[in-house]
């Protein structure tokens, strides 16, 4: 370490000291807000956990009137809708990003990118409205019967379908998080150094090989971040889901039938809820926080593994 540099940093006098105090202060405020938020969410949920115990996540009997708070159906619904959304949004979003960076003619890139960013900024209630007023009828009349017949009414795709369904919610979420994943992945892919791309091309790699072997692996960290963000948005989406999922609170088995998610149930039940029910809603919130924390942890783990892979 260069001793002169150290010297310059050490004495915290005058404006320097104020500067550090400010930074630490802001940092502490941030920590304080997050801590207070977590504390109040968990603290408020305690009476529901005490009342319901572990069956809060293992029972599917959700009946606030009878003080039954089994949220299994809501947990399953959250996982189902998010899984469906990611199943489509991850590959399509990443391919969109690759297309925008490497395949689309240069003069179209900027307008196309702006368009994707515009889509990412549309409020979710608009997606919900399109889903509820436009897609529901098409789902009921066309898609659901087709899926039922193709799968021979396999339990996951069994009818009859009203249109309002877990699948529709999943697909609305897919459309909603697609621009998020595409926009952030594009940034990641676009920031891969040109030298790497040109180097690959210069040693005779095809464009496809360059993208697949060089651009995407280098951008892996950013893409993982994009997917994590998309997944978190899907898990926590409330209103768009509430408008199309049919808000059932029991397990139906079929993704063509109505379902419910943790986030969508909170505003439905919140009005006029008793203190215990409110506490149960905080418990749903706590489960949601655990979900998003898990998503982040998995994202980080993937990232670390990929970095190790690159280093090797």
């Amino acid at each position, binding site marked *: 370490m260069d001793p002169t540099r150290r010297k310059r940093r050490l004495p915290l006098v005058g404006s320097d000291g104020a500067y550090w105090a400010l930074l630490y202060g802001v940092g502490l405020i941030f920590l304080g807000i997050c801590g207070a938020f977590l504390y109040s969410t968990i603290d408020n949920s305690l009476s529901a956990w005490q009342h319901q115990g572990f069956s809060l996540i293992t029972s599917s009997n959700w009946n606030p009137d009878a003080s039954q708070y089994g949220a299994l159906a809501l947990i399953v619904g959250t996982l189902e809708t998010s899984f469906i959304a990611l199943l489509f949004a991850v590959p399509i979003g990443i391919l969109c990003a690759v297309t925008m960076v490497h395949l689309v003619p240069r003069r179209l890139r900027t307008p196309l990118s702006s368009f994707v960013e515009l889509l990412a900024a549309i409020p979710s209630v608009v997606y919900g409205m399109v889903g509820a007023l436009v897609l529901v009828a098409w789902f009921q009349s066309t898609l659901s019967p087709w899926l039922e017949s193709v799968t021979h009414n396999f339990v996951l795709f069994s009818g009859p379908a009203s249109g309002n369904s877990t699948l529709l919610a999943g697909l609305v979420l897919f459309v909603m998080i697609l621009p998020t994943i595409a926009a952030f992945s594009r940034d990641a892919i676009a920031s891969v150094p040109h030298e790497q791309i040109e180097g690959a091309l210069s040693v005779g790699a095809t464009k496809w090989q360059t993208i697949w072997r060089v651009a995407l692996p280098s951008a892996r960290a950013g893409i993982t971040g994009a997917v994590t963000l998309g997944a978190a948005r899907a898990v926590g989406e409330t209103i768009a889901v*509430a408008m199309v999922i049919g808000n059932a609170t029991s397990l139906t088995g079929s993704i063509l039938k109505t379902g419910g998610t943790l986030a969508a149930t909170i505003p439905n039940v919140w009005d006029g809820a008793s203190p215990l029910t409110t506490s149960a809603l905080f418990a749903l919130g706590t489960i949601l926080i655990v979900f998003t924390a898990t998503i982040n942890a998995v994202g980080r783990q993937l990232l670390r593994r990929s970095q190790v892979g690159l280093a090797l």
Partner: protein
Amino acid sequence: VQTITPTNSSTEGDHVNRIHLRRIAAAGAAVGVSLALAAPALAAQGSHGYPGSDLQSQPATAEGAGSTFAAPLENAGINEYQRLNPNASFTGYLAVGSGAGEKDVVNGQTTGVDWGATDVPFGASSSDLASACAGTCPGGTTIGSFTQIPIGLGGEAIIYNIKPTFPKVRVKVHGVFVKKQVQFDLNLTGRVIAEIYNGTIQKWNNSKIKALNPGVGLPSTTIFPVDRADSSGTQYIMTNFLQVSTGSTVGCTSCVWPWAPSKSTISSYDKTGGAGNTIGVAGNPNTVNSLHNGGVAATVGSTHGAIGFVEDSYVLLNPKLKQGVANIYNKARKYVAPTAGAVAADAAHFSGISAANFSIVFGAGSTSYPIAGYTWAIVWTNFTASNADISSVPSGVTAGSVNQYADEVGALTVKYLDWLSHTSTSTSKPGGQNVAAANGYVAMPTSVQSYATSQLAKITGSAADGTPELLSYNP
């Protein structure tokens, strides 16, 4: 300031006097002088044509929230009231559902809501209030803390999204037999609707539906009952009708409709059957739960095979729904469509309407439409700075006059609700109930309008500046 006994000449004048009085008296002026000066000038306003003129100096702003059953009425009412009284200032009406409206008004100071609208009033005792609040009432509140005013009367339409084919039958017209279609909508009974909702009847061509509609072509489509996902007064009225018309009681194991609507959550009867109930609506996997009257209307409109319940005005608002509005079997064993006349006929069979006695479903009379209800406004009996919304206090108001501002908000709220709950004979200045009748509701019977007047007369302003003066009128 002493409470002024209202005279019978001009209700508006009295009120303006009272507001002015307080200020003048505070300044040491003689009460009688101000009365004498102000009354003649304002006496010409006529009854129930309240201008908001006394609010000019401090534009108070009032806000309502609650029942989606009442939403079209409140929206049209506020518009019309503001047209008649350009100085009256409203934040608006938030259609958040009855349960939320009750919650919002009891917590008025934080929510900014001055009157809550609900289809299920708190009732008559403090225990009713406690169950309605479900533990969310501020400490020290009793049933007397709130005043409950009927503001509207409406029917609930049972809407469906299928297209039955109705037969042409031989009827005699001017002495000649001709083939003519005489039935245009499905006939349904409370029992059949209950069995549709609880899953006993799952297809539109079920024999029980056919039996009510002889000769009508019904598809084999699955029925998707649309329910409310939120805490709903509309649903309470519906459940109340199913319960009364099928004669079921809570907890029975063999009855058709096992759940009485519960006040604690304004009924979420569908969420699952409790112990001992063999019929669970949650056991009907085809049920779709939607948010609010508007959500139910939208879901029924876009879902083939759906059936749902909405306040009549939502059918007027959404022409797509007009093609499927059921005739309902009433107590006199007749099928009746939800027309204004039929709802009025039903309401006419119930007397002594009050906050404790508000159910008017399944009334007698051959022309009565059996699914109807009143919608209520709930306000604090005392408008003071400690319970009313004073978040919108204008910048000119000093801390000391905050209670006075609460009075102003209370006065505007009371004047609006008074106007809203009455019929006017003036064509140039329609009353709230005239507006209601033009928007898919039914004008409330005069006895209920009188009850509204007597309820409004209980409301007072803040006592912080002296005696809490009456904010309402005794016409």
